[in-house]
């Protein structure tokens, strides 16, 4: 595959953010490339300089950034980011000759529920793996704001460090700790920032005991939140599928994320479970956690997402409000196949993402 400049049609997908609760009010055309600069005043001043320097001055990053049409003009003295929670720029990921991500850029605003959709093999999970440090992209940067005004470069950090910064995830095929109880699963999450060491643990020093109780308390609260309190002491592997999905979300929330990545949380769940799940995701977002969601179930995407990014063959082909994306001809052609009418039916059945 040629890796020339031809694919540099970077579409920094940015949709006006208005928080999770005011969706539907978007007025902008999804595909207008210049959207960034016209958007909310803070948006244009993201950390272009900071990001490229954090990657060690990689020239490709600079080049990619420069080519974003009408993109950011870093304002002097600005901390960057505005209300962004994460910004991926020009991510490229190849496995040998297979290009999994090809200059993907996206930005997500704090409190937003952003859905990533796309056909199988479009690179959705690869994108997640780049954001969480499981894969290291060959090019591009990921800037994350644990809190406003504190941009942090994620590329090059190990997954656990990224999790501690506040990016938690779930997996497409559930990956719980099967022989640990539901409570213990969540505890692993709630304890990640605890610092007490083996000596305190062995001697049961007060600090360790307090931390332990705090971890249990938070874990139980989270089990309450996801409706699994009655399963507290049951083994993760013995829970029904839908509950395992929710337990995985609780474990991720245990790490105290400001950005939660959900990889097909509704896969394999029944309609009732989907409704519960939508309620849960909405509740999580309402607490101020930004949610980045890979989902094939268009019903869920439409009802939850503030905005949608569409990937195909490792590129962003569209982004915008759910409704706008659904009308987009490129999306219909690449992803939905035939027409809007069949979309809801088809898309729900799409299988797993290729890896």
């Amino acid at each position: 595959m040629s890796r020339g400049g031809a694919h540099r049609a970077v579409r920094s997908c940015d949709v006006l953010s208005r928080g999770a609760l005011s969706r539907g009010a978007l007025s902008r055309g999804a595909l207008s490339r210049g959207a960034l600069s016209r958007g909310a005043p803070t948006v244009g001043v993201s950390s272009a300089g900071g990001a490229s320097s954090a990657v060690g001055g990689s020239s490709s990053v600079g080049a990619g950034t420069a080519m974003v049409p009408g993109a950011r003009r870093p304002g002097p003295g600005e901390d960057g980011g505005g209300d962004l929670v994460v910004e991926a720029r020009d991510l490229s990921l190849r496995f040998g000759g297979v290009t999994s991500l090809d200059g993907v850029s996206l930005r997500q605003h704090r409190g937003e529920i952003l859905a990533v959709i796309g056909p199988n093999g479009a690179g959705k999970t690869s994108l997640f793996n780049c954001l969480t440090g499981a894969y290291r992209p060959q090019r591009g940067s990921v800037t994350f704001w644990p809190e406003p005004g504190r941009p942090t470069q994620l590329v090059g950090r190990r997954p656990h460090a990224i999790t501690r910064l506040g990016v938690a995830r779930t997996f497409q095929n559930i990956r719980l700790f099967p022989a640990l109880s539901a409570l213990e699963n969540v505890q692993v999450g709630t304890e990640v920032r605890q610092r007490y060491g083996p000596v305190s643990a062995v001697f049961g020093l007060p600090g360790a005991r307090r931390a332990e109780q705090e971890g249990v308390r938070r874990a139980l609260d989270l089990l309450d939140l996801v409706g699994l309190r009655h399963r507290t002491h049951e083994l993760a592997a013995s829970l029904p599928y839908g509950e395992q999905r929710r337990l995985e979300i609780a474990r991720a929330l245990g790490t105290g994320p400001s950005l939660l990545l959900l990889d097909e949380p509704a896969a394999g769940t029944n309609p009732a479970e989907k409704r519960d799940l939508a309620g849960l995701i909405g509740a999580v977002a309402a607490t101020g956690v930004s949610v980045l969601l890979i989902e094939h179930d268009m019903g869920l995407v439409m009802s939850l997402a503030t905005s949608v990014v569409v990937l195909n063959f490792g590129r962003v082909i569209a982004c915008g409000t759910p409704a706008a994306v659904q009308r987009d001809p490129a999306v219909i052609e690449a992803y939905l196949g035939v027409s809007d009418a069949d979309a809801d039916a088809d898309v729900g059945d799409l299988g797993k993402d290729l890896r």
Partner: protein
Amino acid sequence: MRTLFSPARLRTLGATILLGLLAAVVTGPTGNSDEPLRAAWDSIAGVRIVPFLGLAVALWLVLTLGPQLRGPAAALAEPVRRPVGVAYGRRGGPVVVNLALLAIAVVAPLVVSTAAQQSMVNDIGIYALLALGLNVVVGYAGLLDLGYIAFFAIGAYTTAYFSSQSAMPWHAPFTLNPFFVFPVAVLLAALAGVVLGAPTLRLRGDYLAIVTLGFGEIIHLVANNADGITGGARGAFGVPHLSIHLLGIDYAWGIDPLPYYYLLLVIVVGVMIAFGRLERSRIGRAWAAIREDEIAAEATGVATLRMKLLAFAIGASVSGFAGVLFASKQFFNPQSFSLQASFFVVAVVIFGGMGSRLGVVVGAVVLQGLAFYLRDKVQPADRYIYFGAVIVVMMIFRPQGLVPSRRRRREIELSESGVGAADALGAAVPAGPRS
């Protein structure tokens, strides 16, 4: 009765008879190279073969009729089993059981011969301690360390270096009481664990096993061949016994094994309590998470590399600690630190029950007890055949070990019901493709 002789069962009968013949040959007279087949023939000819064939048929009967007998056997055992189970389930039950076990451990050496006492210290006690340490690495964190005995050697040679001017050609310019060698040896062993672990713990399963195997062999060979430093194959003589001269306490351990035994008992019980607390802490949970799904653990924020290093260092320091005790108790040479010793500790851990503190101690008692029992009965070289047989049988009928840990038992149950697969290291690998 007709079904008793179905083809499948006849095949089983053939297999058990072959097994009986094999056992007869193995336990038979030792041959010589002039007449290689003579010994084998002598083993199976004559009346000698009768008990083996009898055992083979008995084994076959148990295997074929066993399932039918299980119900009545359970019914027979019920009057004993139930009260015990109820008592154990009651509040404080486990405490009572543990105290009873402790009482047995306290009284046991008083009723056996001096040779047995020696074995209870040198073999059972030391190996119980080693197994407890390796249990942290293998049982908790799920890392297969086949060179574990190297840290034991480091502890022993450190003791010889610091506590005696004559034990090794190379010695410290001053002499330390072995008691003060403990912290030094523990630190050195932990350091060795970190130095070995830091580059290798990025590797997964099999690779780690190979690297640790190599490390164990390097230490063994250096000990054996560095004549000018370690004394080579002759070993280290004259490391002084432990003694305390502190705060008015004056006590010296000596030739008598009993004081060593009780010292070891205190240490083993202390280590068991400490590791129990560790296992139930965030650190133990992080280890369990790594063992069950390393990728998920990492994504949940567990610093996997650091936690694995911690497990490695803790295991190594226990091993180094045991090395100090071992060196001050008795004469040692590089033979004590061979690969076989490493494998033996792994066998003790797996046999007793990975991840179970009581299990690995019981494993040390049973396997080393077996070794002691066989000492006068069979050729030393043959002993490992019996160990092998015991462990193979164990893995077939009770893969979770003698006294399995709660988590390990769950993992085995899960894998038997088709959820995940408990592999040799106790990891229940989630089904489905990996991301």
